[in-house]
């Protein structure tokens, strides 16, 4: 399969400091990959290497199966974390300027931009100066400038920062639609809920190395430690006795409704949750029996802590 982005053994050092230590991963066509990592993990250097802003010391970058080239980079839509607009230009005028830098002719650029302006509800601001618009409005325009030339690969660095929930939802929908249309997306963010909502796959960097990677659902499944949530009606003592040696009870919350309790437990044998459910059903009325998979945030913290422990 030809990957939209294929990074192999990428190395970069600034003086004595090694920022990327042989990073390798791939982004499948039409998928959304989350690029995660704590501050200083090497995410920005990695993205800048892909964009040709920073020259890597070693390793290879392939774009759509071909060796990295400046022409290939022009097929990427890039929304950097540190982004802005010219204050002395009109909104529409500079959107056309950025589109033309991406190789679009003026007529096509205006047509595509008008459609995006309408979709993100900024069409009334075409002739206004940037100084006249709000921060959220400017963020939307920056997003439009990134995607207007229909890139085959989209690199978004904290795309939701500065948005209210309604506009964040609009951007998420737009990103999903782009992916559905075949655009591959590399999403760098610290916003874990958006990773869970958007990403098919994730790659976690720490200290310049990949410490975790794979499909988001698979990782969460693999990271499941046997935690279950049970909503039941009945006696706490009976519930505890029923668990016996099958599971460890983490705790029971006070009534969430009249006589209804919520308990968290950890299975001793994760392979047989059915046995626990059967045992409980004989002692109390089980209303819900839910598998609690780890959040991306907890996987992130766990993986980072594990790496730091190894280093120590």
């Amino acid at each position: 399969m030809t990957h939209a982005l294929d990074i192999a053994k990428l190395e970069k050092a600034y003086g004595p400091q090694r920022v990327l230590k042989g990073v390798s991963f791939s982004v499948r066509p039409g998928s959304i990959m989350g690029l995660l990592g704590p501050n200083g993990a090497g995410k920005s250097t990695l993205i800048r290497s892909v964009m040709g802003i920073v020259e890597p010391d070693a390793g290879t970058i392939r774009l759509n199966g071909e060796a990295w080239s400046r022409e290939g980079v022009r097929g990427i839509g890039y929304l950097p974390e540190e982004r802005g607009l010219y204050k002395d230009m009109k909104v529409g005028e500079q959107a056309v300027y950025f589109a033309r830098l991406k190789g679009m002719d003026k007529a096509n650029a205006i047509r595509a931009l008008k459609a995006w302006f309408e979709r993100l509800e900024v069409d009334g601001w075409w002739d206004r100066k940037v100084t006249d618009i709000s921060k959220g409005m400017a963020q939307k325009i920056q997003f439009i400038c990134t995607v207007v030339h229909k890139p085959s690969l989209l690199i978004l660095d904290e795309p939701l920062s500065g948005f209210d929930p309604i506009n964040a939802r609009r951007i998420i929908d737009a990103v999903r639609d782009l992916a559905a249309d075949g655009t591959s997306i590399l999403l760098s963010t610290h916003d874990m809920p958006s990773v869970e909502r958007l990403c098919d796959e994730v790659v976690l960097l720490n200290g310049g190395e990949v410490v975790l990677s794979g499909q988001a659902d698979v990782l969460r499944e693999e990271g499941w430690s046997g935690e279950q949530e049970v909503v039941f009606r009945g006696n706490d003592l009976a519930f505890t006795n029923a668990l016996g040696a099958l599971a460890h009870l983490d705790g029971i919350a006070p009534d969430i409704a009249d006589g209804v309790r919520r308990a968290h437990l950890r299975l001793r044998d994760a392979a047989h949750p059915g046995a626990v459910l059967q045992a409980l059903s004989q002692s109390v009325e089980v209303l819900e029996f839910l598998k609690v998979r780890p959040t991306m945030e907890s996987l992130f913290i766990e993986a980072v802590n594990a790496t730091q422990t190894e280093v120590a």
Partner: protein
Amino acid sequence: MKGGLVATVILREWRTRVLKRSFIIGTLLMPFLSVGFVAGVVLFSEGSDPSHTVLVEDAPGLITRLDAASGQYVPRCPGCFPGRPNLQYRFVREAPSDSAWQADGYTVLVEYDEAVLQNKSGYLVYETSPGMMAKRDIERDLSRAMEHARVLSSTDLNWEAYQRLKLELRLVDREVSEAGRTEGGGEEIRGGIGFLFSAILFLVLTVYGGLIMRSVVEEKSNRVIEVLIAAVKPEALLLGKVLGTGAVALTQLVAWSVLSMLAFSTFQLFFDSGVMSAGGAMGMGADVPADLLTVMGENEFTAILLDIDWGWMIASTIGFFIGGYLLYGSLFAAVGASVNSEQEGQGMVVPIIMPLMFAYIVGSGALANPEMSAFTALSWFPLTSPVMMLVRVAVGVPLWEVIGSGLVLLVTARGVLWVAGRAYRHGVLHTGGKTGWKLLAQWIRGHGG
């Protein structure tokens, strides 16, 4: 495609500046102010010399005699007082009181005594100064009349014989070149013209260099830069910025030239038709030339303007502007990329413009001796040649030197553009933290993020 991207950047730089209200007002206003200045000088020089009626108190009777027919004192040497449109003389042995001669319509009184031939001084009495030009004419006329008196009293020569014997040597310049002897001279005036052009170039280079630096700093501070250099190579972006801002400067220079010519032609049209003629307005009629170019030729300042070989000077100025601008513009851009604010940048550009400033200051010295070897060297040194060569071009310099110096400048500018591109590539993404020459040198060597 790369050329297309550079053109897109050039167009943006050009459009955003040229369409600014301040640029339009400045471009439109400047030619009319300059032509207005020239017009002011012309009209002032023509109309600033009002008529004076001069009463000369020739108490010792040195230069006048009593004309029996008219009963008036008249000059012994009538030829010493040529008919001047702005001066009328009357001679007396004893002047009345100040209020009396003023009441009689005289504006100036000249007084001297017997000692005037020894101490060579007298008094010019007035209520309102007659002005430098009128004073000079009065001094000249009276000196000649007294010289006449002295010749007649101290020698056996008559005035005509003395005039024939008197000799004032005038040396006419002739330059020897491969083409033989050609007309020479006028270096100071021509050097002054060259100096004027070099001053304009100095101003344009520093102003527009500063504009590039501001533009680079702005793109760093408003965070547009990372989006830009993801689409365009930093070197191409730098080239686009330098050329775009240079195009703005050229637009302004061309607009100034065209509008100045239009304004001057309009002024000439009105002046020659007599509508604006100060002479006409003052009722001086046929004594005042109605033709503008003749009037300008008679004025020391405006005569210099007529002496300019505009075509050659403008071509040289544009040529050295392009070379100098590429060189200094690139350096200003590199500085802009290496700083976090305009204030920091202003501190760093001082050493950069020092050579240019040095050339500008010593350029005035080159007026007196343009062929001095130090000035020749400076007119070849690329950091100073844009300013210094223009002074030499105006005075007269072999064509091969102008072309050679221009080529050295262009080759250097290309090299500096490459070096600045390296600094720019690293510097534009450097925000916050330390800045300075050490870091800039590191970036040029290719180190640093």
